[in-house]
């Protein structure tokens, strides 16, 4: 392995070099995205269309509960372990603990090993789920939620959150409601939902909403870039509507899994 590590120092990805013409083309494309009112997205969706969602429970039999989600090119697998004994170093607690960890495979991104930059996702996943899990039902113990992003194709964190709530339900952890999450990107005056990696690279700003549809409560809202008040309201409502539809899909999956078990 030391020889391979030494060899690694001199490697580079053979990507095409950027030229002056490419820069001009980029500027032209950016103007087009921001100012034109209507343009087809690269995958043929309209502004307010989500990618087709495939979700499934139980891919990891070693875990108490697990779920797999595929939204276009983004693929996520989440396992839930527990409730199980907390580590000895932790102090006594009347309520249970929720522990979340998000990691990327080395090949998840076009450039190898790029997924290491998303260290804040674990904390964000924890905050999104904490409000939904009934921690008082498993005192002194810990529920571990581990997520692995197999492929990163954009809108990774919202998909991780939705998949994690499905895995928690599969594990039989008591929750107030399923948490579903959707994000939108802003291009000038245009708002597009469920952006891909390419769209995220070009966006002026983004909003992510994690939402419990049955209770109409938001567990997490994250905003980046510049937004006007009116646009924020529109974007949040768009997200909540999409979250409700996604929650219907999740409930359908849970019913299917339950009927299969019998």
């Amino acid at each position: 392995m030391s020889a391979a590590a030494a060899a690694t120092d001199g490697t580079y990805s053979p990507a095409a070099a950027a030229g002056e013409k490419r820069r001009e083309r980029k500027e032209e494309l950016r103007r087009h995205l921001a100012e034109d009112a209507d343009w087809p997205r690269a995958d043929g969706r309209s502004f307010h269309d989500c990618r087709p969602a495939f979700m499934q429970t139980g891919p990891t039999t070693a875990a108490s509960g697990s779920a797999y989600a595929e939204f276009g090119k983004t693929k996520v697998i989440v396992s839930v372990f527990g409730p199980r004994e907390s580590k000895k170093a932790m102090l006594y607690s009347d309520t249970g603990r929720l522990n979340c960890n998000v990691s990327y495979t080395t090949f998840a991104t076009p450039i190898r090993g790029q997924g290491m930059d998303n260290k804040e996702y674990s904390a964000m996943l924890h905050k999104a789920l904490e409000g939904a899990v009934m921690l008082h039902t498993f005192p002194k113990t810990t529920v571990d939620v581990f997520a692995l992003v197999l492929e990163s194709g954009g809108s990774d964190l919202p998909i991780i959150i939705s998949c994690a709530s499905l895995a928690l339900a599969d594990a039989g952890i008591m929750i107030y409601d399923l948490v579903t999450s959707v994000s939108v990107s802003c291009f000038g005056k245009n708002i597009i939902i469920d952006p891909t990696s390419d769209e995220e690279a070009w966006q002026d700003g983004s909003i992510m909403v994690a939402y419990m549809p049955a209770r109409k409560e938001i567990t997490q809202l994250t905003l980046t870039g510049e937004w006007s008040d009116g646009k924020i309201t529109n974007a949040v409502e768009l997200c909540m509507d999409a979250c409700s539809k996604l929650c219907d899909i999740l409930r359908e999956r849970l019913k299917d899994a339950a009927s299969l078990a019998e």
Partner: protein
Amino acid sequence: MAAEAQATAAGGLAGEMEVEAYRRLFPLAFLERHLRESVRPDARRPAEARPTTVALAAVSSAHGSALVRLGDTAMLASIKLEVMSPSGEAPDEGSIAVEFHMPPICSPLVRPGRPAEVAPVISKNLEDILMSSGMLNLKELCLISGKASWLAYLDVYCLNADGSLFDAALISAVAAFTHLEIPLVSVGDDGRVFTVGGNEGKAKYELVNREKRKLTITNVPFSLTCALHKDNVLADPTAEEESIIETSVTIVLDSSDQIVSIQKPGGAVTSMTTIKECISLAKDRRRKLREILMDNVEAMEVDQTD
């Protein structure tokens, strides 16, 4: 009648709970009781391996990838190619970096941050077998002798750990190399190598590797792990069986049924008769695995032709 039905149902449920309790409290006795009848707790015969499926092209962003399911054990292998300067000792060869990962999603025994103890062992075994079996010719990974060659990163991720991890990892690695497609590259003015897009005809620079897009795969290695318990040989053990039985042996054979590796990490002493029995089982297993892999490769080629 209703009372009888309820009593029967209650008895059945109580019986199931008793069996489950016996299984958890006395796992060894539970297993031995099954083996006396030549059957295993999951209804397999001792010499029977679990159903195996291979799916190629599981990762779209990788140059080669495969998803393998061996019973409930799931492995995802992916290969990414990068250009590097070859070493002085071997200027006309590429190289391979193997890494086996056990993320915390795959087993309750793995914790984030601290890598599983078994992961580097499997990494090393995989690398040794891929190199020593002669499956790959590293000279095919050379682009320009002494200046540029491919470094293939092979990453194998365990998605579900249910026993026989090395067997599943090796199948997925072999399948990923079978699926590997080398991108077209050219040399720029500054001497650096870069990929050429789909538009081949308008390439300003001469292509370096127009012909070599696929690796020549010879002598494909396949493995079989057996758990040994007293007089019994259990092929392809599950995680439960592995945790109970302390002796195991892994046989790796190549396409000519020659032995690439035998590994027996500790455990009770074993006679040569038992080892030969394991080798015989591994030969049968190799033939079945080769059929499975060839079926997938042919299916993939048909897809690409259409």
